[in-house]
């Protein structure tokens, strides 16, 4: 399915590249440990999201500057340097994230330290390595982070509500059923699979509606109002050349065929 590049939905997808379309987690399966295992509540999701932001942005901005100073024969140090700089920035980040909730760092465990070797960090290198302008790099990294954050929050909310019946640690009185198995890594994978499928379904549905509107040549408002209604019968009859339904009878033979 293709559409005009000036279409509003195409422009929306281009503008939100990395967040909705081309999401690093739902599209490429990056940063799996954080989404599948560590994001067990909204608090941990927020903590991990802050941690990811405070490692990705400084690394993305500092590494190009450092690599300019390093001689050509030591360029292979680019990869470990990223991890080391991220690990350095993780130390103060621990204090910031720990301030959100004292129990947060315990529940995240080793996963917080893993942010410095996250696949997203190395994927951002591949995306920004040829970009010269700093603001473009910053924009690309922000998009990647927003994409990760969106999925982290979705998974965190789903797991906390379904598993503990709470949200941000506060009990939800309307939530009577507990499904604590959702905290297990296996169901984390399954939940992520369903979220990715839902994302694809929404994208395909919106694309279908956009193309349908464009094909029939009506205004968007008219099409949304009439969406779901059947096309008028007279148009169908005009095209097929059959007898109108009011007078049609299954046993009745059309005039043309009778003559034959």
């Amino acid at each position, binding site marked *: 399915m293709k559409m005009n590049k000036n279409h509003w939905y195409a422009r929306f997808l281009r503008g939100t590249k990395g967040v909705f379309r081309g999401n690093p987690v739902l599209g*490429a*399966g990056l940063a799996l440990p954080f989404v599948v295992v560590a994001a067990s509540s909204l608090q941990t999701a927020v903590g991990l999201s802050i941690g990811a932001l405070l490692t990705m942005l400084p690394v993305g901005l500092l590494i190009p500057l450092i690599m300019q100073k390093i001689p050509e024969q030591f360029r292979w140090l680019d990869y470990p340097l990223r991890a080391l700089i991220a690990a350095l920035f993780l130390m103060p980040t621990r204090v910031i994230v720990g301030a959100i909730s004292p129990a947060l760092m315990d529940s995240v465990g080793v996963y917080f330290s*893993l942010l410095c070797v996250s696949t997203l960090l190395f994927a951002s290198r591949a995306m920004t390595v040829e970009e010269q302008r700093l603001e473009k790099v910053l924009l690309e990294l922000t998009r990647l982070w927003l994409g990760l954050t969106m999925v982290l929050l979705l998974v965190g909310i789903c797991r906390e509500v379904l598993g503990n019946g709470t949200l941000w640690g506060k009990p939800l009185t309307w939530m009577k059923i507990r499904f604590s198995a959702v905290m297990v890594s296996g169901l984390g994978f399954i939940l992520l699979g369903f979220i990715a499928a839902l994302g694809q379904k929404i994208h395909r549905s919106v694309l279908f509606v956009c193309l349908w509107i464009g094909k029939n040549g009506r205004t968007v408002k008219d099409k949304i109002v009439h969406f779901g209604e059947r096309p008028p019968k007279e148009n169908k009859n005009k095209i097929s050349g059959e007898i109108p339904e009011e007078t049609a009878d299954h046993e009745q033979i059309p005039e043309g065929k009778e003559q034959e």
Partner: protein
Amino acid sequence: MMMKFFAIFVAALTAENLFFTRAFDVYGLRELHRSPKKMLLFGGLTTAVLAVAGPVAYGINKLIYGLPFYYYINGITHLLILVGLYAGVYWLLKKYQPKVFELVGKYLPYAAINCCTFGSLLLAAKDTELDRWWKALAYHCGAGIGFTLAMLLLWSVRQRLSSCHASKSFRGLPLQMITVGLIALALVGLTGNQLPA
């Protein structure tokens, strides 16, 4: 001793598999999934790195454990071990074994510094049962081989799913994740989901 070594090795290989129970992943999986040979090479490198770094990390962890800032320096110390190992192997191979370097040089950074190697070292540092260097070695060897097998299984799942008729929304990553989740659930049945965080 041998029985204990074997028990830790098998536990790390199956019940505490780094991919299925902890979801540790590596960068460049998509490229690796094009051929199982590349995956085996990558897995072999990862296991070798873990086998060497594991006992070293065990010794260093003994030294720094109990320091006032252990909580903050633990991560960066283990990362420095991996970076040092990577830099040493890279330099040695390039200088003395250029043919081997041509073969593995491309994968070396991704195999040496990733979630699997770093996470395995951090988990072993936290685990009080791994109180001997050979126990740490058994754990890291099992973790490396278990991760390689998981990658091969994932490749096989991908191949099979690509030829099945699935709903358009579920094609690709969603179906893979659901299949991996089902395998992970089967493994969780062995441990009862009581892994340390």
